[in-house]
């Protein structure tokens, strides 16, 4: 009896063991196959001499299909696990790839920059804080800190201020859509593109030649002397900041305008009935109601002005006292090939951006967007 029992049960156990083993094997085999396929695609793309067209299409199929395959295989494997475990692992299947990619392309490089910032030009000898000493004492660096501050204050102030004024005025206009579209247009232009356009605005020719710059053409039309705008320190910084304001006002205006529409009209009407002037309504009612929007817009533009590079790079290249932190970083890293200093300046920039970013995200989370 007992023998039969054991044999029967052992047969059952054995059968279940085979099934379990099979399932485990399949669960290992399928990811393995997927890995081989992906790896094969990678090797092919790395080593091939095939025509560009074939490489491009293989890359697209491999890239998109690979991501789909990875997700599908991971999901499939997780679903084969016991329900409780599967539930716990499921979120990682969705978020995991994003985390891995962020880690690989953002987090690790940032750590590496931090590491490199303590080494010399060729990243061979440890130099301690020397690169940071450079970043905070070099005259050009100090100049770029002052300039960046100017960018933050005037650039952000200008874009948000004009954005608010235009949003308020457009709100009261019959041609609201048209005006807003007009102001929003420069948003579609890249910073470098804007640089090229504004080069023609600021272009300078000597007095005896025909002026091709818009601004100088106007100045000479009214009988003035043409000016070399880029070389006028420190005003040239403001001429550059104007470009940022021109680009970003549209963004500020659209967001602020949307917030304006969200203010209940009953509050404003109540104010009017109580006899408040229009100015008072704007200052006491409208601005407080959209304050969190203003903060969000301002912090976004502050981050843009902290990282500003393209405009300076295309217009003056940091000459004539217009250097900013990002252009210094580029020069140290890619022109002078001083990886230590370049990395140190990058770290300084990151540290300067973090508080603004953190404040920005907190604002978002208050509105449950984050």
């Amino acid at each position: 009896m007992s023998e039969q029992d054991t044999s029967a049960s052992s047969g059952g156990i054995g059968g279940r063991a085979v099934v379990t083993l099979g399932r485990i094997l399949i669960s290992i085999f399928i990811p393995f196959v997927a890995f081989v396929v992906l790896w094969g695609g990678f090797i092919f793309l790395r080593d091939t001499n095939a025509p560009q067209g074939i490489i491009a299409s293989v890359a697209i199929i491999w890239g998109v299909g690979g991501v789909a395959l990875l997700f599908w295989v991971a999901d499939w494997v997780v679903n084969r696990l016991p329900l409780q475990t599967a539930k716990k692992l499921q979120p990682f299947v969705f978020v995991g790839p994003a985390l891995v990619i962020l880690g690989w392309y953002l987090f690790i490089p940032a750590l590496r920059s931090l590491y490199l910032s303590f080494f010399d030009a060729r990243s061979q000898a440890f130099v301690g804080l020397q690169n940071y000493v450079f970043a905070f004492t070099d005259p050009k660096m100090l100049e770029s800190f002052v300039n960046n501050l100017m960018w933050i204050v005037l650039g952000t102030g200008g874009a948000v201020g004009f954005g608010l004024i235009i949003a308020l005025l457009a709100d009261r206009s019959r041609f609201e859509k048209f005006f807003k579209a007009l102001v929003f247009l420069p948003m579609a232009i890249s910073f470098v593109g804007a640089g090229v356009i504004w080069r023609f605005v600021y272009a300078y020719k000597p007095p005896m030649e025909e002026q091709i710059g818009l601004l100088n053409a106007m100045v000479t039309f009214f009988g003035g002397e043409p000016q070399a705008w880029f070389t006028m320190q420190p005003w040239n910084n403001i001429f550059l900041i104007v470009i940022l304001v021109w680009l970003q006002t549209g963004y500020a205006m659209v967001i602020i305008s949307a917030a304006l529409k969200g203010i209940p009209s009953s509050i404003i009407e109540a104010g009017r009935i109580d006899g408040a002037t229009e100015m008072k309504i704007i200052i006491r009612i409208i601005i407080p109601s959209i304050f969190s929007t203003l903060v969000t817009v301002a912090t976004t533009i502050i981050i843009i002005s902290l990282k500003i590079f393209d405009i300076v790079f295309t217009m003056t290249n940091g000459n004539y006292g217009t250097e900013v932190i990002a252009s210094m970083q580029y020069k140290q890293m890619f022109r002078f090939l001083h990886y230590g200093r370049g990395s140190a300046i990058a770290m300084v920039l990151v540290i300067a951006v973090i508080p603004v970013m953190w404040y920005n995200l907190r604002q978002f989370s208050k509105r449950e967007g984050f």
Partner: protein
Amino acid sequence: MKKVVVVLLVFLMAGAAVFAAGQRETVDEKVVTVFGAFVDEEARRFEEAIRPFTDATGIEVRYEGSSEFETLISVRVEGGNPPDIAALPQPGLMQNFAQQGHLVPMWNSLEQLVDSNYAPVWKDLGSEGGTPYGVFHRVNAKSFVWYPKKAWDAAGYEIPTTWDELEALMDQMVANGHTPWAIGIESGGATGWPGTDWVEDVMLRTAGPEVYQQWIDNEIPFNHPAVKEAFEIVGDIWFNDDYVYGGRNYILTTSFGDSPRPLFEDPPRAMMHRQGNFVTTFFPDRIQDNLEQEVGVFPLPSINPEWGIPVLGGGDQFVVFNDTPEVRQFMEFLATWESGKLWAQAGGALFPYLDQDLDAYPNEIERSLAEALVNAEVFGFDASDLMPGQVGAGSFWTGIVDWVNGRNLDTVLNTIQRSWP
């Protein structure tokens, strides 16, 4: 489950096909890859110039040029993916790569060719620690003054042979109501370099080649009196609004390529322009078409007779990263006049070969430039290309810009000296 199997099969087959496709691509072709800084028209002329090599040997030379060359070559070398051959515009780059052991030194047959076909200065410029690496091909010479010939003939100006004569000529021009110079130093990310050339040219003439070399090695500081004197001589011309068309603002804001244009207005707005042989490609088309009738050129005069008329110049040196028989053949070809002849005929390039046939140059002007280059007693390689990048491509350029924009000379020189790594 069936679906799963089907999908997997498809992927497996695709993978297999991919492998198979990859396998087929391993046919050995005789190819030499060359990476350099010159692009567009210059790259086209280079490719044309080396075609006789491909015709004769069947070895294909793939040239790739990039305007971001200096950055990319370091990235590629450090990434373990260097080209077979690179054309380095700055000897400093060659020294870095040589010290790191990335370069293949010259082999005997190539070294013999270089010894017999170049002036010794070129081999020295291509050497690091006594080992020769680089072969020069196209070079440029910068100590030349260009002038509108017809206007000069009409005004009866004569070519100055000493600095005093040059100064007298400038005053004579001002007295005649002419503006002597047209100068522009704007050049995008490299704004200021034409100014460094001026200072270097004067430095070679006042201080001589030995002090010039000490200056490059920072054995004398950047604020040394000899350097300051060179800046001051340049400043005496540049900051005299009677001497320079448009004054400081024109110097600062005009791109070096546009800056000679006032010479070719009718009547000319300026009478002289100092720039290298390559500047002819920036002249207006109608001038380029009649170069010999429209344009004259003379070497920037001597200041201290002890040094004669030095020539300031530069050039790309070709260095080897991968040692293959094809690469060796191509390098030896580059060391011969054959590799330059077609380009010389096309114009816009000078070559340092001793056995070159000066008749190949398309006009009298380029012929005389090539002659001046080959016969120069003192040849100085562009100092800013030899200094560390922080200075030569950094504070020296920006220093020139600040100086022209009104900053005090001592401050400028001290700032440059402080930036020396």
